[in-house]
């Protein structure tokens, strides 16, 4: 079975490009060029040099001793939190800004939820001297104020989005509208493995550096390049896609995707797409999404802005449907508790998104000799107030 994308832009039944004609030229330009650009030697050189010298890759694969002892299994953390700007998001924005440059674009738009993708986009725009406009839901602007400040200081323009649930989904709509309004000079840097083909594939390829590094790092540490489990949280699914990428077709490696169950999967305030969603179209892609019987998209909820999205990328829809990945839903409270536990056991403050992955130990037992790699997708500096308020510290 094939878990990566096929030549038509689909992962099994999922994917494609369900876009209005207004976006056809942009998407087509990208589709025709992305693989060509990504395989040009000068692109590869520039991309790799920036990943190394600017982003700080390779990110370490850290054996979490105290956490491993606590749960009596072998836990490695893939330290994407140590990347420049503090999350995996920058792997993708570095890649896309280089693509945009080669496509002759000079204006960049992006959506953001947690603000990490917005910061990562504002960062590469500063680096490449491009105009940067970031769409962000008003709810997220409040709960991720720190990242808003960072974007401003980096020179980006932030446009508050007031429609819908005023979160990531709505910011994405607004970014797409901007792109329709600026079809020639603008590149839209999508922040996850969502959107019309070729975005899911392009973003997954840029994030694939994560699993590529895990392979040799684990070889160094454990004498084997395959862990038993790779575990990642899934909002749109880009950090998971990157962590799974080189293991997709290798079924010795079990994949676990962790979704946000908000106040409880069936509480009406949740973002657990795999359980609550079914097949449909969101943001140009056929995938799983949370929707009414009528096909209206449901407003999701999660304490973490980056998982507060009613869909998942088409790769993940296929991993779910095929059973290739196991999906686990984690509530706000479970995530917060697991996040705080990591702080106090390992001295690492994880993003609340990431904290969801760390909470799987409540739901699943592992064997003492199991080798787990948890993708530590981002640091929690943006979430300090949420932690402080949640635990009344």
């Amino acid at each position, binding site marked *: 079975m094939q878990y990566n994308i096929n030549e038509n832009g689909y992962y099994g039944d999922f994917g494609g490009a369900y876009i*209005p*004609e*207004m976006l056809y030229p942009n998407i087509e330009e990208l589709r025709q060029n992305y693989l060509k650009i990504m395989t040009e030697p000068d692109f590869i050189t520039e991309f790799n040099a920036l990943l190394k010298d600017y982003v700080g890759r390779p990110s370490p694969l850290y054996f979490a001793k105290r956490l491993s002892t606590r749960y009596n299994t072998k836990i490695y953390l893939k330290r994407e939190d140590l990347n420049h700007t503090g999350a995996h998001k920058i792997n993708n924005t570095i890649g896309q800004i280089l693509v945009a440059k080669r496509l002759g674009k000079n204006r960049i738009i992006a959506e953001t939820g947690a603000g990490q993708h917005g910061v990562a986009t504002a960062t590469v725009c500063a680096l490449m001297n491009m105009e940067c406009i970031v769409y962000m839901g008003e709810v997220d602007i409040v709960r991720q104020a720190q990242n808003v400040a960072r974007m401003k200081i980096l020179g980006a323009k932030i446009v508050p989005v007031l429609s819908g649930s005023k979160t990531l989904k709505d910011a994405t*709509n607004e970014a797409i509208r901007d792109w*329709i309004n600026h079809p020639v000079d603008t590149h839209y840097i999508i922040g996850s493995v969502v959107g019309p083909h070729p975005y899911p594939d392009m973003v997954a390829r840029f994030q694939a550096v994560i699993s590529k590094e895990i392979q040799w790092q684990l070889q160094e540490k454990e004498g084997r390049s395959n862990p038993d489990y790779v575990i990642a949280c899934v909002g749109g699914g880009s950090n998971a896609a990157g962590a799974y990428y080189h293991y997709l077709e290798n079924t010795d490696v079990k994949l676990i995707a962790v979704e946000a169950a908000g106040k409880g999967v069936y509480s009406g305030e949740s973002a657990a797409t795999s359980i609550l969603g079914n097949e449909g*179209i969101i943001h*140009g892609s056929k995938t799983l999404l949370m*929707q009414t019987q009528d096909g209206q*998209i449901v407003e999701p909820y999660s304490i973490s802005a980056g998982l507060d999205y009613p869909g998942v990328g088409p790769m993940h829809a296929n991993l779910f449907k095929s059973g290739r990945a196991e999906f686990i839903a984690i509530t706000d409270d479970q995530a917060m508790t697991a996040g705080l536990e990591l702080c106090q056991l390992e001295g690492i403050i994880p993003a609340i998104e990431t904290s969801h992955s760390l909470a799987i130990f409540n739901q699943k037992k592992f064997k003492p000799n199991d080798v787990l790699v948890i993708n530590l997708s981002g640091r929690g500096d943006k979430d300090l107030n949420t932690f402080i308020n949640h635990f009344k510290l």
Partner: protein
Amino acid sequence: MNRINQKIQENKKLLSIYFSAGYPNLEDTKSIIKNLEASGVDMIEIGLPFSDPLADGETIQQSSTQALKNGMSTALLFEQLKGIRSTVTIPLIIMGYFNPILQYGVADFCKKCHALGIDGLIIPDLPLAVYQEQYQKIFEHYGLINIFLITPQTTVERIHHIDKQSKGFIYMVSSASVTGGKSGFGNVQIDYFKRIEKMRLKTPQIIGFGIADYLTFKLATNHAKGAIIGSAFIKALTSNGVTGIEDFINQIKNEQNT
């Protein structure tokens, strides 16, 4: 022959009006349609509201959101359209995003449209290629015309391709913009209109986006078979309600001080 094709053959410039079903009030659908026909409109696009209308500007977004809040749904819209053909004769097109149609079931949806006397569909986020591969047969089976869009950025090759696939008319988007953008046309648009005119496509074009009044309607229809008004009409509905429809249409059709 499909009512759209019949209408196209009439020797006149066509005025088409878009509205969001269920707005301003849930039960306005039928009376808006009747008023539009009575006011002399040539064609109607009934908007099936969607929670996330990503090709639409604020006006249509808000009317969709309100319509959904009012309780509009696919089933209800069909319910409201029952018997519409006993009085209304002009072409009726449903315009909606693909996901609600997909959830209803594309075949069921088409079957229902056919039964109600709907003539065509505009589904902005159903790409031509997917349509052809998966849905064209169903549409044709139910005698529904699927309307395709072109924009100022559409390449010549693709315009010819779309022309070939099109029945009824081509929805010619006036400028690179979501709906409800600045109204009025500059040189760029006029050049684009002329460029398309010169291509002498087999399918007539109806221009949409940015048409709001007599002047823009006139300008657009100088170069095309007709023009579509959406956001401007919804704004008028918001201000003046269903009873103001006749005045609004008169202003479009007749030069006068506004």
